[in-house]
């Protein structure tokens, strides 16, 4: 495999209130994979993504995106936060939320124009939400909200996509729609990193996986490392319960 390295994490340690959440994580994500991060609750999955994205300051360690620090590579990265992290009663419409994806490339003060609007409409269409573009976001279903979030990330037109539990609380149709888009992204050579809860769907959806429980247990192709051994190491002896859940 002669792939380029999209994300490299070295000796990353993160602590919330100085209590360790992630310990000495080394991680290399090759370009063009669709990767799931799995692990039990409190394993630090979201924290890992957030510290790669610079939302959380690590205590030690470094992160590079295509060999440069994140701050320099921001435009290559798109982020889909957990749906529950924002107030969906905020007075704004679906198209407005998607347009927010263009703000990063616009920079300070400059306003989005016709070009940004067109891109946002295209993104909405891609996630099958064009008909809802002027809908107030609180009047969307959970699945539709998640699709709007995905569209916002698509507008960023990035090379690497980070998604925090995109399948949480969404309907089956949306789940399929999202995973199809993710697979499309991978086909286009993009790298996608997803915090994922449902172990059953890992082999079906993803080609790469990272097991995480405060420290990294294993990372690699799903077909090589998604096995009982690593699941036990990550979830303890009760992993079968986790799988069947």
């Amino acid at each position, binding site marked *: 495999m002669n792939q380029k390295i999209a994300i490299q994490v070295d000796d990353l340690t993160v602590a919330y209130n100085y209590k360790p959440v992630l310990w000495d994580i080394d991680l290399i994500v090759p370009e063009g994979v669709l990767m799931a991060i799995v692990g039990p609750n409190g394993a630090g999955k979201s924290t890992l993504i*957030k510290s790669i994205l610079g*939302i959380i300051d690590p205590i030690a360690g470094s992160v590079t995106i295509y060999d440069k620090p994140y*701050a320099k590579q921001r435009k290559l990265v798109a982020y889909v936060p957990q749906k529950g992290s924002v*107030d969906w009663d*905020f007075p704004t*419409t679906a198209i407005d939320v998607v347009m*927010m994806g263009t703000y990063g490339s*616009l920079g300070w*003060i400059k306003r989005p124009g016709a070009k940004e609007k067109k891109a946002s409409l295209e993104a909405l269409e891609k996630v099958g939400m064009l008909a809802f573009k002027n809908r107030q976001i609180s009047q969307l279903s959970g699945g539709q909200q998640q699709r709007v979030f995905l569209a916002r990330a698509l507008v960023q037109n990035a090379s690497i996509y980070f998604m925090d539990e995109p399948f949480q609380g969404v309907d089956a149709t949306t789940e399929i729609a999202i995973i199809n888009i993710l697979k499309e992204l991978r086909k286009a050579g993009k790298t996608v990193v997803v915090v994922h809860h449902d172990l059953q769907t890992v082999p079906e959806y993803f080609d790469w996986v990272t097991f995480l429980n405060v420290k990294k247990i294993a990372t690699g192709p799903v077909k090589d490392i998604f096995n009982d051994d690593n699941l036990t190491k990550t979830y303890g002896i009760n992993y079968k319960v986790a799988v069947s859940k």
Partner: protein
Amino acid sequence: MTITEYFQLLFTDYTLRTITLGTAVLGAICGMLGSFAVLRKQSLLGDAISHAALPGIAIAFLITGAKDTNVLLLGALISGLIGTFWIKGMTTKTHLKSDTALGLVLSLFFGFGMLLLTYIQKQPNANQAGLDKYLFGQAATLVVSDVWLMTFVTGLALIILLLFWKEFKLMLFDADYTKTLGFNTRFIDITITFFIVLAIVLGLQTVGVVLMSAMLLAPAAAARQWTNKLSVMVFLAAVFGAFSGVFGTAISATQNNLSTGPVIVLVASVFVAFSFIFSPGRGILFRQLRFRKNRRELELKKTLQMMFGIAKTHENVSHPHSIKILNNFQGFTKKTIREIEEKKWITITGQEWALTQKGFDEAENMFNKSSDDE
């Protein structure tokens, strides 16, 4: 003086015009910035800040011995900011929750302020009178320079708001995401907080320490009910705020012995109550009506289902049936039948009804629809 007289005087009386203009501008800036406070879930921060400003006023007076409004407001600004940052510090550094931190700053600063105020009142200093107005506000004491100051700050806030509109909106909606896009969220956060504190401090003279927070919240909460767009909400809040200010001042000016603060707050509260009930999209009244209508619709559909069940047995769906067959079906009334006819789901001839094609389709659709509705 009656209200009409007041508005007549408005065009001739210089003082009155100054006061009215002042409260209008104040209401506008409070509504504008209050929208941000409400959306940031910092509604009660305003309450704490306004109370925290009181010792600042007293200390500024003790130091300078002068009643110059601007100096007093500077004192208020400083102690308001100290209160704000202490609240933040308490919630991040100790395990005290934000409600406790807010309540502490609010009551302790205010108590200290009252200690100082009563201390000042006992001093043999002729200038002392007039600090009382900061408790409940006295719009009548506004002078032209105060109005200029308010207008200047409002203008400044407006420019900043327009300039960083996109950033403010993004930050209000999704702070983490804002950070990943490379914006300095700390800067945005501090700018918003600073302007909120500034608006509160400006309002102390007119509305007073005790009720200032309502001036910030009420117009924004009312405006939120009428729109789903942030820009419209901010604009409406400014308009509601300005109107509350003007009407409140007008009413209190026409009565003896009334502070402006409580009156303005009551006017603003009327705006809120009205919006809660009558706003078409979110209001309680229309929500109730929609709820009723949905329930009625459901009843109609149940009857239609019943008819569908009968009509289905015939090859020709529009074969007429006697209305009497329906008699043992609960919930069916003459009114239901008529409403169903109005919807053109059935036709009625004499004592018989017949399903139309439209009615048939509708009933058949109901079976399929229930599953794919999210």
